[in-house]
C-alpha cells in the first residue's frame, strides 16, 4: 500500500515531468485535441479515477489517497484527476451500466473524446422531475424514444446524452421511469438553442422523434430509473456548490468595494450598510463551507453542507441589488459601450441561474427542512396514482 507521502512525491514528480499547461478550450462544453491527449495520459497513469477498480482505469485506492492526487493536480492547475468524485456520466455508467456500455463509453468520457449532456428536465417536469413524459418503448433489442427535453447544456457538442424517460404509464410516476444513454449523432435528435433572459444561449431544447437506443444502453433495470437518477443527481449536487460567475466584461462591477469607490458612493450610509451585509453574507458562506469541510474530514456529518446553494442564491441576488443601487441610472444602458452597466444587469439576471437552476430555492428549502431538520414530508397527492391518471399542466 502506498502511503500518502509516497503518493504525493510520485504525483508531484509525474506532474513535473508531464504537465506543461494547456490552451483553454473555446468553451466549457467543448474540448481540444491537446486536452484529450493530456487526459489520455492522466487516465493511463491511474490518476483520473483512483478509487475505481483496476480493470476500469482505477487503482482501487481509498478516497483519502485519491484526494492527495486531486490536491497535487489542483496546485499544478492540471485538469483530469479525481473524476471518480466529479464526473456524473462516468460514475453513473460505472455504477449501473452494462459491460458493453462501460466498454463503449467510460474511457472516452474520462478523456473527453466523447462529451455528454443531460436529458432530464422537460417543459412539464422541472422541479418535479418524476413527471417526465418523454417515452421510451421497447422494440426488440432497441428502445424507441419520443418526447422533448429542455435546459440541456452542451447538447450541440455532446456525443451522448443521459436520458430519463418513461417506460410505463400505468404505474405510479416514480416507478415507470428508466435511465438510458442516448447516442446524439442520429436522425430524430433535433437541437434548438434556448435564449436565456441574459441574452446568452447556453442551453437547448431537444426534440426527440423515433430516436433509437441499444438495449445495452439501458442503465440499471427497466423501471428503476428514479434510483439511478438520484445517484446521478447526488454527484451533481456535490459539484454544484459555487454558483457564482464572473461578469461578461470583467468590469469593475465584480468588485463591490471598488465599484462603490469608483462611483463615489463609498461614503453613502445606505450603500455602506448594504455593503457590510453583502460582504458578510459571502464571508459567512465561506466560513460555513470551511466548517462543513472540516466536519466531513473528521467523518462527522454537518447540516451546514446542505446550505451552500441556498446561501449562494441569496448572496447573488443581494449583490445584484447593491450593484444596481451603486451604478444607478447607468443600468438603463446596455452593450459593449456600457461595460459596467452591462455587467451589472447581466449579474442581476444571471443570479437566477443559481436560485432556479439545479432545483429552485423553494425546493431546496423543502429538502433542507425534511432531510436535515426532519420535518414531516410534504404530502404527495400523485405519488401512488398510475402516471396516466396524474394531473398535468
Amino acid at each position, binding site marked *: 500500500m502506498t502511503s500518502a507521502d509516497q503518493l504525493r512525491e510520485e504525483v508531484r514528480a509525474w506532474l513535473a515531468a508531464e504537465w506543461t499547461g494547456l490552451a483553454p478550450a473555446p468553451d466549457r462544453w467543448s474540448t481540444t485535441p491537446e486536452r484529450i491527449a493530456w487526459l489520455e495520459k492522466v487516465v493511463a497513469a491511474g490518476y483520473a479515477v483512483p478509487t475505481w477498480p483496476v480493470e476500469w482505469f482505477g487503482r482501487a485506492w481509498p478516497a483519502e489517497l485519491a484526494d492527495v492526487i486531486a490536491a497535487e493536480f489542483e496546485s499544478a492547475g492540471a485538469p483530469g484527476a479525481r473524476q471518480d468524485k466529479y464526473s456524473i456520466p462516468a460514475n453513473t455508467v460505472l455504477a449501473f451500466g452494462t459491460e458493453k456500455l462501460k466498454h463503449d463509453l467510460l474511457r472516452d468520457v474520462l478523456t473527453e473524446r466523447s462529451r455528454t449532456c443531460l436529458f432530464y428536465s422537460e417543459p412539464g417536469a422541472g422541479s418535479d422531475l418524476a413527471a417526465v413524459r418523454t417515452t421510451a418503448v421497447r422494440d426488440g433489442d432497441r428502445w424507441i424514444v419520443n418526447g422533448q427535453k429542455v435546459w440541456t447544456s452542451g447538447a450541440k457538442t455532446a456525443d451522448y446524452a443521459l436520458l430519463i424517460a418513461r417506460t410505463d404509464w400505468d404505474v405510479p410516476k416514480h416507478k415507470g421511469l428508466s435511465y438510458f444513454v442516448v447516442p446524439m449523432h442520429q436522425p430524430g435528435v433535433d437541437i434548438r438553442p434556448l435564449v436565456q433572459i441574459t441574452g446568452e444561449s447556453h442551453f437547448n431544447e431537444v426534440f426527440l422523434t423515433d430516436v433509437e437506443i441499444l438495449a445495452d444502453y439501458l442503465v440499471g433495470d427497466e423501471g428503476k430509473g428514479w434510483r439511478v437518477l438520484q445517484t446521478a443527481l447526488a454527484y451533481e449536487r456535490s459539484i454544484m456548490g459555487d454558483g457564482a460567475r464572473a461578469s461578461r466584461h470583467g468590469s469593475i462591477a465584480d468588485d463591490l468595494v471598488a465599484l462603490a469607490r469608483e462611483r463615489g458612493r463609498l461614503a453613502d450610509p445606505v450603500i455602506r450598510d448594504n455593503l457590510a451585509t453583502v460582504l458578510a453574507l459571502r464571508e459567512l458562506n465561506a466560513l460555513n463551507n470551511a466548517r462543513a469541510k472540516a466536519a466531513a474530514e473528521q467523518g462527522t456529518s454537518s447540516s451546514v453542507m446542505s446550505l451552500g446553494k441556498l446561501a449562494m442564491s441569496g448572496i447573488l441576488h443581494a449583490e445584484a441589488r447593491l450593484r444596481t443601487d451603486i451604478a444607478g441610472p447607468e443600468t438603463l444602458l446596455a452593450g459593449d459601450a456600457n461595460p459596467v452597466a452591462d455587467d451589472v444587469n447581466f449579474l442581476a439576471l444571471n443570479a437566477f441561474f443559481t436560485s432556479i437552476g439545479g432545483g429552485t430555492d423553494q425546493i431546496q428549502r423543502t429538502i433542507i427542512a425534511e432531510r436535515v431538520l426532519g420535518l414531516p414530508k410534504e*404530502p404527495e397527492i400523485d405519488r401512488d396514482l398510475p402516471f396516466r391518471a396524474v394531473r398535468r399542466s
Partner: protein
Amino acid sequence: MAISAAETEQLREAVRDLLADRCTETDVRRVMATDSGYDPELWKQLADLGLPGLLIATEHGGVGLGAEELEAVSEEIGAALVPSPFLSSSVLTATLIDAAGSEEDKRRLLPGLADGSSIGTVAVTGPAGSWTPEGVAVQANGTLTGTASYVTFGQLADVILVVARTDDGFGVFEVAPAAPGFLRTAAEVFDPTVRLSQFTFADTPARRVGTAGWEAVQKALDLSTVALAGEQAGGARKIFEKTVEYLNTRVQFGRAIGSFQAMKHLAADRLLDVESATSAARHAAADGGPGAIALAGFACAEAYETVALSAIQMHGGIGFTWEHPAHLYLRRARSGAQLFGNSRLHRERYLVSKGA
C-alpha cells in the same frame, strides 16, 4: 495555554451537563425574580468548573485558557440563558485588568475574580451607550465625576473599574464600593437575565489602574464581543431546536404544522442563520483579528434576533405568552444586540477591515 479540541469538547459538555441540571427554565425564571439577578449557588458550581477563572492566568488562580474555549463555553451559557455575571466579571473585567493592570493589580484582584469570590464590572459608556471613546461620560481629574450607563451587573460588583477621560486620553480607574460620591442605581431592564446599573460619580476618589488607555479597553471589549457572539450562537441554536421540535408535534388542519411549506421554508432560512452565527462566533475566537470580531459582532446579534423573532411567530399564540420561553430568548437577543457596541458600530469596523 491551549488545550486540544477534544478537551474543549469535554469542558463544553461539563458546562452543558451542569446547566441542564442547575439552570433549567424554572431556575432561570426563579433567578429572574430575585433582586440580585444571579444564583450564588450556581455561580459557586460554575466556579468549581473553573469558569470565572477561564481566561485568568494560572499564576493568578485561573485556568489560563483562551478565546476558543471561552467561545465554546459561551455557546452553552447562551443556550441555557444563564443569568450570571460571567460575561461582565469573568470576561470584561478580568480581561481589562489583564490588559491594563500592573502586576500588583493582577495579584490583588484576579484571584478573587478567578475563584468567583469577588465579582467585577467595568463602567465604560455614558448615556450614549456607544462603547466608543466618544461615549465615555466620566472625567478624571484627581477624582472622578460624571455618569456611566448600562453597567453590567453593577449592583453585584465589588471590583469596580471605570473608564474615564483624562488630560491625556483615557484611563482605567478602580473605585471602592463605598467610595464617597459614588452612587449606583439598578436600572429596570427589558431582559431580566442581564442586569444593568447606572453609576454616578461626584468628586469620587479613584485609583488609576496601570497606565493603559483606550486600547486596553478595546481589547477587553473585543474579547467580550467574542463571548457574547458565542452566547448568541448558542441561544439561537437552542430556541431554533425548540421550534423545530414544536413544528413536529403541534397539529393543525390534521397535520403537524412542520409539514406546511410556509413553516419548512422559514425553518430552512433560520437554520442558515443559526449555522452562520456559529461559524462567525467560532471564527472570531480562532482568528482574533478586528475583521473577524466585527463580523461576529453584528452577524451573531442579527441572526439571534431574527431566529428568536421567527421562533415566536412559528409558535403562534403560545409563543406570545409570558409562560413560553421564546420571549426570554428574544429578550436576551435584543439586549445582546446593544451591549458592548451595536450592529452599526460593528458593521462600520467590518467595512474598514475590508478596506471600504
